């Protein structure tokens, strides 16, 4: 008797479970979004779900390479992804992206024309810019009592063991290359070797090579100067008002994160609707305010508070942009960059 009762219970549990599971799986189409961690105002996702009667499954990654490996290994289908510029090139080269129909994204007209049609995707057939920024020096004004306007500050022996560099080969080598007056995408081994030498000379002054933890270290006053991305810098400044960000006069790198649709997306229609939704001025505004990075959406930028909108560090003017370079995907030459960088770090 007891055995029979247990069987009945099992069957009952099974029935209840399957009813519950089908309950979740309504007729609503699902949109799978894969974005950087903490890189969207999540309320916006809910609004999108309501307005378009769609279910959004939102996952996050922490580096471009994670995104690449996950897509490359297959088995996961996303509808909207947010790679950075050079990763966009790599994905395009490997035919990993779906074409997008700009006609279905009318709000793309709000995007700054100077940020459209970049080298990465000249006709915006595959992507639209999501956020953009520069690299520069984040510094603590209580520990640095001179104006910072040059990359030389990162080689200044007065700040020995007060300097944080990025543990990112492209970015750190870019600074050395800019300082030497070379292109940050150089393929010349001699130029790279010189840049490596410069970084080796700098190493005794460097406190650490960091990535995500760098902004927290700056906020807590652990170091005086740090090579940082502008978005991270804006966050750090909002946490500690002694901090300031400078784009050195020798030039900088302008980077983008874009929205794109990977090959094999199941909900292409939804993906385009989502991209259009994110470019609605009021949505883009809220998103920009939440994230703190520079939005390419001009209509949204117009609505930002004056002190942010006109902040030359957050939204650098034309002069800075003209003096800036994009990263280009290097293909096999990346091995040379890696070797130089390994030499610097093993020095």
């Amino acid at each position, binding site marked *: 008797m007891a055995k029979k009762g247990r069987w009945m219970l099992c069957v009952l549990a099974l029935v209840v479970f399957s009813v519950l599971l089908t309950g979740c799986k309504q007729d609503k189409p699902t949109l799978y979004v894969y974005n950087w961690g903490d890189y969207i105002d999540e309320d916006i996702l809910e609004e999108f779900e309501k307005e378009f009667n769609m279910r959004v499954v939102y996952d996050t990654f922490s*580096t471009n*390479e*994670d995104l690449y*490996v996950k897509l490359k290994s297959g088995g996961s289908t996303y509808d909207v992804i947010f790679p950075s510029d050079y990763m966009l090139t790599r994905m395009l080269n490997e035919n990993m992206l779906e074409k997008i129909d700009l006609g279905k994204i009318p709000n793309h007209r709000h995007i700054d024309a100077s940020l459209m049609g970049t080298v990465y995707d000249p006709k915006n057939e595959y992507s639209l810019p999501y956020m953009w920024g520069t690299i520069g020096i984040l510094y603590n004004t209580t520990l640095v009592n001179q104006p910072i306007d040059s990359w030389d500050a990162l080689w200044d022996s007065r700040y020995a*063991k007060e300097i944080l560099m990025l*543990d990112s*080969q492209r970015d750190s080598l870019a600074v050395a290359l800019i300082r030497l007056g070379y292109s940050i995408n150089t393929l010349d081994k001699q130029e790279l070797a010189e840049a490596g030498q410069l970084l080796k000379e700098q*190493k005794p002054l*460097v*406190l*650490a*090579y*960091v990535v995500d*933890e760098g902004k927290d*270290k700056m906020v*807590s*006053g*652990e170091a005086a100067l740090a090579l940082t991305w502008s978005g991270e810098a804006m966050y750090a400044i909002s946490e500690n008002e002694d901090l300031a960000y400078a784009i050195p006069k020798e030039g900088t790198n302008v980077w983008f994160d874009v929205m794109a649709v990977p090959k094999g997306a199941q909900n292409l229609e939804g993906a385009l609707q989502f991209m259009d939704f994110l470019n609605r001025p009021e949505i883009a505004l809220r998103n920009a305010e939440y994230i703190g990075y520079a939005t390419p959406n001009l209509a949204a930028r117009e609505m930002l508070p004056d002190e942010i909108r006109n902040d030359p560090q957050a939204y650098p003017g034309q002069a800075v942009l003209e003096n800036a370079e994009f990263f280009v995907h290097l293909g096999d030459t*990346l*091995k040379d960059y*890696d*070797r130089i960088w*390994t*030499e610097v*770090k*093993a020095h």
Partner: protein
Amino acid sequence: MKRSTLFPYLIWMVLFIVVPMFLVLYYAFTVPTESGATWSLENFARFFEPIYLKVLWRSLRLALFSTVICLIIGYPAAMVMAGNAFERKSVVLLLFVVPMWMNFLLRTYAWLTILERNGVINVLLANLNLPSLNILYTEGAVVLGMVYNFLPFMVLPIYSVLSKIDRGVVEAAGDLGANSLQVFAKVIFPLSLPGVVSGVTMVFMPALTTFVISRLLGGGQFTLIGNLIEQQFLVVGDWGFGSSISVVMIVLILLSMAIMSFFEGEEKDVALW
């Protein structure tokens, strides 16, 4: 055991151990060409260049150093815990194990805030009017991180072997006139060797291949072999070179295990693995 019960394990091992191993070997011994790939030792030749050997040497040195420190701290701790005089055994055992319930990354992050310039230790020192210490982002911090994270792997196997030693053997040695030092050197330590060997292996291997500890606590300045491998797969996308480093590591670990099993002697049945 019946053959049919072994079957699922066999499939599991083939799928998740044998196949990946062959993939690693394949990538290590080939270089991509226009039309696929050709066999080549190029990846290995590259590894034996001075900069990469330097990284290997640093990894070996730090791993060995951490293992020795773990042994020096861990052995007495295991002895105290296994001793009869000690009543709160389970509490101490629990204290060793509880931190392992917490995420490894989280614990390592915690050390960042403890060691940093305005961190817990330096604030304490400042309050005592003592000069501050720069510990974070040094080799010492990396070793500290390894010892902290891997110590339980040293203590537990030694403890489990020590607590199984027949008390009678120890008493007999005493009755026959050995002093406590001789009892330890001639009876307890030789009997505990399998545990020591397990502990040493279980600390040495993860210490040799870690990349998170050296990145967080070393501030990226002390590239270890694990960082090198991670970099090849995630940043450069050079799977061939990454695989060849992994193969070198596998060979090194096999070698060290062979040396270990030589020391292990005939007490194999007591060893944990």
